């Protein structure tokens, strides 16, 4: 009997087809889960319309780069809300990976002949693509709430969103490898999302935090989410914040390396423990 072999498999075209297939599946899931899109949009809008409006008079913001004048509190927190969208999306993607692993769909992905790093990276990029769609939908609505960055800012924001999205996604990927069940993963919301978001410059500038608590200020400075927010803030005003970008890039590299290690079939955590329903 001849051993069948296809021509496309593992060729550059095969890689492209595989990558497109993974992105397509994520897009299909996203479209089919309209509630997910709606909640991704409503969450930052609630912060923008209600929280920011309510605290506008309490939390005044001085002139800090990249702003050249005093800005409304709504304007200040918009980059933080953009980063929040990506943070939630990154965690949502990893939540779906835990779910996929639990129901078995993840196994179908991982038994593809393509290298595991490529499959996970493709899944990560698919998640980033979805988060960018959410961000621009949010910015469109925000525009009518007088959040009007320069037009060029929308363009310069794009590559930064790719980088920050990769950081949040790879962090989510790493977290997904640590949890075997969805129930356990729910605690991530309390122990990761909220501390990361609140201990950052998303809602208040760091100089204000420093006045209140020097220790908290240092924690905020160490938080990679702070630097993602600042990279987004500068990019949205067509400015370049090299330090923040470098820190975000380094954090991405660390999270990505650790998550690829965790999913490695011979070295990672899953290899040592076995995935759910695999112990027969």
């Amino acid at each position, binding site marked *: *009997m001849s*051993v*069948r*072999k*296809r021509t*496309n*498999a*593992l*060729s550059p*075209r*095969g*890689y492209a*087809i*595989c990558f*497109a*297939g*993974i992105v*397509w*599946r994520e897009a*299909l*899931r996203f479209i*089919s*889960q309209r509630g997910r899109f709606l909640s991704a949009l409503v969450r930052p809008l609630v912060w923008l319309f209600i929280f920011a409006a309510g605290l506008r008079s309490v939390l005044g913001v001085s002139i800090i780069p990249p702003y050249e004048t005093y800005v409304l509190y709504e304007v200040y927190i918009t980059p933080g809300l953009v980063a929040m969208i990506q943070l939630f999306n990154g965690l949502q993607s990893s939540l779906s990976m835990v779910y996929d692993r639990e*129901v*078995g*769909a993840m*196994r*179908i*992905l*991982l*038994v*593809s*002949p*393509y*290298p595991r790093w490529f*499959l996970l990276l493709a899944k990560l990029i698919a998640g980033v693509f979805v988060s960018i769609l959410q961000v621009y939908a949010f910015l469109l609505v925000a525009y009518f709430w007088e959040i009007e960055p320069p037009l060029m800012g929308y363009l310069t924001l794009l590559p930064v969103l790719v980088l920050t999205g990769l950081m949040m996604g790879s962090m989510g990927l790493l977290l997904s490898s640590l949890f075997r069940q969805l129930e356990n993963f729910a605690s991530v919301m309390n122990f990761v999302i909220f501390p990361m978001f609140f201990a950052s410059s998303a809602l208040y500038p760091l100089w204000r935090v420093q006045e209140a608590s020097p220790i908290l200020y240092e924690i905020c400075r160490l938080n990679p989410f702070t630097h993602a927010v600042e990279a987004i803030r500068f990019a949205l005003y067509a400015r370049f914040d090299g330090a923040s970008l470098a820190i975000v890039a380094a954090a991405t590299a660390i999270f990505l390396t650790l998550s690829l290690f965790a999913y490695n*079939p*011979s070295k*990672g955590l*899953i*290899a*040592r*423990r*076995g*995935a759910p*329903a*695999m*112990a*027969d």
Partner: protein
Amino acid sequence: MTQPALRIEALSHSFGPRKALDRVSLTVPAGSFTALLGLNGAGKTTLFSLVTRLYDSTSGTIEVFGFDVRREAPEALSRLGIVFQARTLDLDLSVRQSLLYHAALHGIGRRQAQARIAHVLDKFDLADRLHDRVRNLSGGQMRRLEIARALIHDPALLLLDEPTVGLDVEARQGLIREVRRLVAEEGNGILWATHLLDEIQATDRLVVLHRGRILAQGTVPEVLAQAEAPDIQTAFLKLIDAFKETATGQEAAE
């Protein structure tokens, strides 16, 4: 000599202190139906997970048509299809979308995939469900879809891990018939894990796995002769009893 579809040598694997597989060696000849018989917890699913490289083994080798699963994973994995015991379908996708996605995971473009989809759905009597959501299929149809999906990249070896679990008698018989037809008509090698004795025929190859160890293997008559038993059920029980006696003797010696 024809290359075996699957050759496993001295394969061991542990989850922490628990040994799931202990020096397992077995062969699945190309174009054969090989039944992997074992009780729940025998190590069948672990074996499948190692063959598909969901994780790597502690020791031993696995070759698919001569390609080492660890060193030549892409070559090996592109030649095998897998149906896991637990359902692995995305219920929100349509039948067509599921198959297109799986084809893409094997580097098959849309045009080529459409032809394969028509072929496998026709073979498993699902052609009229092409645009239906997976969640609207019956249990038997979902299983048939999983097998159709496993065949989308035309693998020469198909691994099925207790595929009839949860199916009614009619669906079970239909599924076994269709898989046996794959061996006869398409020349696929099949490794069929089961704990149900009535799924094994006299013409099959049989591998008996118990608590991570191979107790017997060969054609059904060879296994019966080895166990000195008139039928598979008696042979299976005798092999397990012999294993228990050996294990008890070893424990007493220690």
